[in-house]
């Protein structure tokens, strides 16, 4: 047997194993809640009620999910090409600069439906360009993409701080942020969709970017599984050697994958900047890029999985805020732990339970794991 793991039926591979991994992550998180001296079951109930109990909660959950769909897709596109883009955070942060330029120039002239496309292009372009340099260095000079993208996160943060306390700050203002946008750069809310179902909503920032995120999820699916380029990316991700042998240009494929990834990361900035705060402020990404890693891993790099995982993390963020309110001992940082545990169990320890599940399947129905076929051929 050359591969360490035998095949499982698809529903077990894509449903059962992620579910088990996720449950283990939440059980460990439950122990942390116990350690703090609170009841984990009550905490879970408050969390779910806070996220889905009221219309406002649902709207907030979907608002956070929008952000995570973008960053999750960004990490996934690079991952299909075998690249670990840990720089989503920095690409989204620097994309705030592109949005700032687009919005500050046009918000008093254009209505939102003209500013929005301009801002989309600007954010995607800046995000993609920020990913270009690490991609080029990886393709041409063999510098490890993980290290360079980490470095670029810090460089992006330094540049943004420099700009926001200096050139981009309005004269006479103390806060390190741009001036507030005019109505021409404020995106319309989508709360009426939830209100259609009869729920009441007090101000929630859910906006049209959510629809853009869903469109992007569809386009990513199209790109990865229905185009030649996506096929080449997946080939390179599986085996760079095979890709080279098939005549796929390494440089071209790495750079396109990373720039797509960077563009998706950049678009994430639209949601908080134009949909909620209406300005570009210091640290507005606040870790959403890293959440993308957890989301992509949990969604098993498939857009449908990513949208579901993003909604789950949106629920954690929104419910976590409610939880911090009800249980003062548990602040929102609890989510950071859960996020870490999800990355650990759904990512690094992905295969921990697989042998046991395989053994279980084999004992019930040997055919489901392809045992008979192997015996028959004597392999």
């Amino acid at each position, binding site marked *: 047997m050359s591969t360490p793991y035998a095949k499982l039926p698809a529903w077990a591979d894509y449903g059962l194993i992620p579910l088990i991994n996720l449950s283990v992550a939440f059980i460990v998180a439950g122990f942390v809640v116990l350690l703090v001296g609170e009841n984990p079951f009550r905490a879970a109930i408050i969390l779910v009620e806070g996220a889905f109990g009221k219309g406002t909660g649902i709207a907030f959950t979907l608002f956070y999910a929008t952000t995570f769909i973008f960053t999750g897709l960004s990490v996934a596109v690079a991952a299909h090409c075998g690249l670990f883009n840990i720089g989503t955070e920095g690409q989204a942060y620097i994309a705030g600069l592109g949005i700032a330029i687009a919005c500050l120039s046009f918000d008093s002239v254009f209505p939102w439906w003209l500013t929005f496309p301009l801002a989309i292009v600007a954010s995607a372009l800046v995000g993609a360009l920020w990913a270009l340099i690490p991609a080029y260095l990886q393709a041409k000079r063999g510098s490890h993409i993980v290290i360079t993208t980490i470095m670029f996160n810090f*460089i992006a943060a330094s540049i943004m701080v420099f700009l926001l306390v200096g050139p981009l700050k309005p004269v006479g203002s103390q806060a390190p942020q741009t001036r507030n946008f005019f109505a021409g750069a404020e995106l319309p809310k989508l709360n009426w969709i939830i209100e259609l179902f009869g729920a009441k909503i007090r101000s929630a920032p859910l906006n049209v970017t959510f629809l853009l995120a869903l469109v992007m999820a569809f386009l990513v699916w199209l790109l990865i599984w229905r185009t030649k380029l996506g096929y080449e990316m997946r080939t390179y991700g599986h085996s760079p050697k095979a890709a080279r042998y098939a005549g796929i240009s390494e440089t071209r494929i790495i750079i396109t994958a990373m720039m797509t990834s960077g563009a998706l990361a950049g678009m994430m900035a639209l949601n908080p900047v134009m949909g909620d705060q209406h300005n570009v402020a210091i640290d507005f990404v606040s870790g959403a890029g890293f959440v993308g890693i957890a989301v992509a891993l949990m969604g098993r790099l498939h857009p449908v999985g990513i949208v579901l995982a993003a909604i789950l993390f949106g629920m954690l963020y929104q419910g976590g805020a409610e939880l911090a309110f009800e249980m003062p001992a548990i602040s929102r940082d609890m989510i950071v732990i859960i996020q870490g545990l999800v990355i650990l169990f759904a990512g690094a320890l992905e295969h921990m339970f697989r042998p046991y599940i395989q053994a279980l399947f084999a004992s019930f129905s040997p055919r489901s794991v392809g045992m008979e076929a192997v015996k028959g051929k004597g392999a």
Partner: protein
Amino acid sequence: MDVFNAIVQTLDSTIRLSVPLLLACLAGLYSERAGIFDIGLEGKMLVGAFAGAAAASVFHSAFLGLGMAILISVAFAMVHGFASITHRGNQIVSGVAINFVAAGSTIILGQAWFQQGGRTPALQPGERFEAIIWPGAEAMRDVPIIGPIYAELISGHSILVYIAFLMVPFTWWVLFRTRFGLRLRAVGENPAAVDTAGISVAWLRYRALICTGILTGVAGAYLSMVQNGGFVKDMTAGKGYIALAALIFAKWKPVNAMFACLLFGFLDAAAIRLQGSPLPIIGKVPVQFMQALPYVLTVILLAGFIGKAIPPRAGGVPYVKER
């Protein structure tokens, strides 16, 4: 004389600021030389800092604090080992996970146990490592040139500072003059050869990670028990990543690591000192530029423009025996 004093003071803070980088960098050296990428240096330092300050203030002993810092940090290193050695998981994913768990749990537990907004109680004398004044330091202070150098630069640091700098020759000796070191380097270059020689690849890599855990624990303890009189949330503030950058900058060699960390420490010290004041010729340098410089330098190095940084060959690849 003023200029001279300013230089000595800047160099003194350079030493203080490079110590956590140096310890973390050497920690990374052990694991990366053994073929295990470790993005989780940051997280292990953070839990070390928290465990050290928490234990020191509860048990009123600096050494118990240091011990606890090392213990918890090693425990996190073992989680990394369990995921990336035993279960052959992605080492980078595992490191990222450790950083998140560390960042979240230190705040949550700190708040639950001490109720000071994620801080630990301020450490009292005896609960932190005090500066060691070398014999004659005060008497020498007035001697020109040598006096300030002896009194400021050499004397007057805590024991962890001296340990950190002694770790440099020690690490060199372990890696290049002992059997363990030879095997550790071999397992990072060609684990199959080590396996063929009848030595357990997994156990060797676990031992390398134990070394990593010990050193990140000391680095964390230095942050919370020497540099700062207690734990503050997110107090590592990216130092683990700078240490990683320094490790690449040093091309995975212990003595180079010391110079790389001193350079990055100096940039930090200079940034603090120059805040707002203009330089001759260049004029005013933005603080953010100085802060970004270590990262920019590392990227330039990685691009191969200042020599070539070649990582250990088997780095990041889980070892599968059957192949």
